[in-house]
């Protein structure tokens, strides 16, 4: 069901672990739903003064697809300017992996969201201007998290007990 590229990235994931000196972190997913991705970015200015994702890493709790998409999004974003990285979508991630089973497409969305959230966190903390598209996605992600938490409320309560 998984493509060879997915299996390859799952078998030997790139950029895994936690960066020691990251600039910002994007946290998405929920443990009760089975996928959690934390994406760390280290942002540095390039020679022209543009913000560049100089280094990137991730920690993921999730299935084969979640781990492969974490690996792929980190490859795709590494070395890109923030402006370029913002434009990366879940479709780019899935395409580079040679596709994902339909039921696993949400994993590629999670990976793209994690990148979005890390960039959003970075721009916010630096007091920099946040592009409209990034803000819209951030609001959409926050809304989804709230909806998920509501959906799994009954289970979450059980967890506490």
């Amino acid at each position, binding site marked *: 069901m998984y493509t060879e590229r997915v299996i390859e990235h799952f078998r030997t994931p790139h950029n895994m672990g936690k960066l020691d000196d990251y600039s910002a972190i994007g946290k998405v997913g929920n443990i009760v739903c*089975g996928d959690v991705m934390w994406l760390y970015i280290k942002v540095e200015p390039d020679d022209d003064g543009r913000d560049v994702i100089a280094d990137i890493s991730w*920690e993921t*709790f*999730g299935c084969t697809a*979640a781990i492969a998409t974490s690996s792929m999004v980190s490859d795709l974003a590494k070395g890109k300017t923030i402006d370029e990285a913002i434009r990366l979508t879940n479709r780019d991630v899935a395409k580079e992996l040679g596709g994902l089973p339909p039921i696993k497409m949400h994993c590629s969305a999670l990976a793209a969201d994690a990148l979005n959230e890390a960039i959003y966190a970075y721009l916010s903390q630096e007091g920099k201007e946040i592009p409209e598209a990034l803000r819209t996605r951030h609001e959409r992600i926050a809304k989804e998290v709230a909806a998920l938490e509501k959906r799994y409320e009954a289970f979450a309560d*059980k*967890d506490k007990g």
Partner: protein
Amino acid sequence: MTRSIYLDNSATTPMAPEVVDAMSPYFAAAYGNPSSLHSFGRDAHRAMEKSRETIAQLLGARPDEIVFTAGATEANNLAILGAAFAAGGRRHVVTTAIEHHAVLYAAEWLRTQGFDVTVLGVDAAGRVGPGQVRDAIRPDTLLVSVMTGNNEIGTLQPIDEIGRVCRERGVLLHTDAVQALGKIPLPLGSVDLLSASAHKFHGPKGVGLLFVRSGVRLTPILHGGGHERGRRSGTENVPGVVGMAAAADLAFRERDAMSERLRALRERMIATVTQIPGTRLNGHRTESLPHIANFSFEAIEGESLVMRLDERGIAVSTGSACSSPDLEPSHVLVAIGVPLSMAHGSLRVSTGRQTTEREVDEFLGALRDVVDGLRAISPFKVGE
């Protein structure tokens, strides 16, 4: 892959060579339709009835109490729907939250047909109490369905006690014995209906049976030529039935010795796996089928665990949501109160007659590596 270790025998089992041998004449040589009058038909009919006698004798039933089906899903549906539609005025069915979906969804479907269904909860080990069944039975209850041993966590149910409750109240008892046949003595004397499936005990896929106690009335769910004494129409799967009989013969002969061996392997796994921090055993430590052990690992998702082990040639399964078609975690793990975060990290290991101690040890060694590796890339750290 240099080697492969199959520890997913609850999903299906390899066919025993004796079973393949027993079946092979019935594909291209003795291929008659058992309903035909001529010698081809008579030969097939004879083989089928001999198989029925073998199975009946092993189970402790009468040959006419054995109905051949295309597997346990059909047997479970025939038992539940068949009993419901033959029940006259009674409209209520009792079952449990940890049944296989072939029971649970058949019962749920009955709701759409105007029946009432009570789904009993289970304790933290997955056991249902006879008292719960007694309390759930109403004057209009027609059937109670409780599995013999659970396919995900292995927990055994007190079928004999539940059977006594059902007898007292004049209610039929069905048990799904799919995982139990060949592993433990079957509670045949306590039940009215019992389902089994050949491929779970080293027989072929696509064939199973329903034991129907003499005098129990079922409305057929497949209509047609009136095969199986009108209870299940459709030309019988003669090679399958012959294979099921050969597999049952082997299973009953080997049962006690094999169960003892598999139970020791289960103990060995439990002792080693529970040494890994952030691990739990799902199910009952002792009141369990001998061949199933289910564990959960903190901070790890089960599908990844299965895939990492698969890379090493080890086949196991998980109740993780990510591995299920509906992205819901196992209903059995949820029913026994496993926190969702731990239900995602579940692993089912199921041994079989071909499993060796060495294979189990190799699995245990690989498991530790794989668990450590996945935890290293997880945002959640065990013990924090």
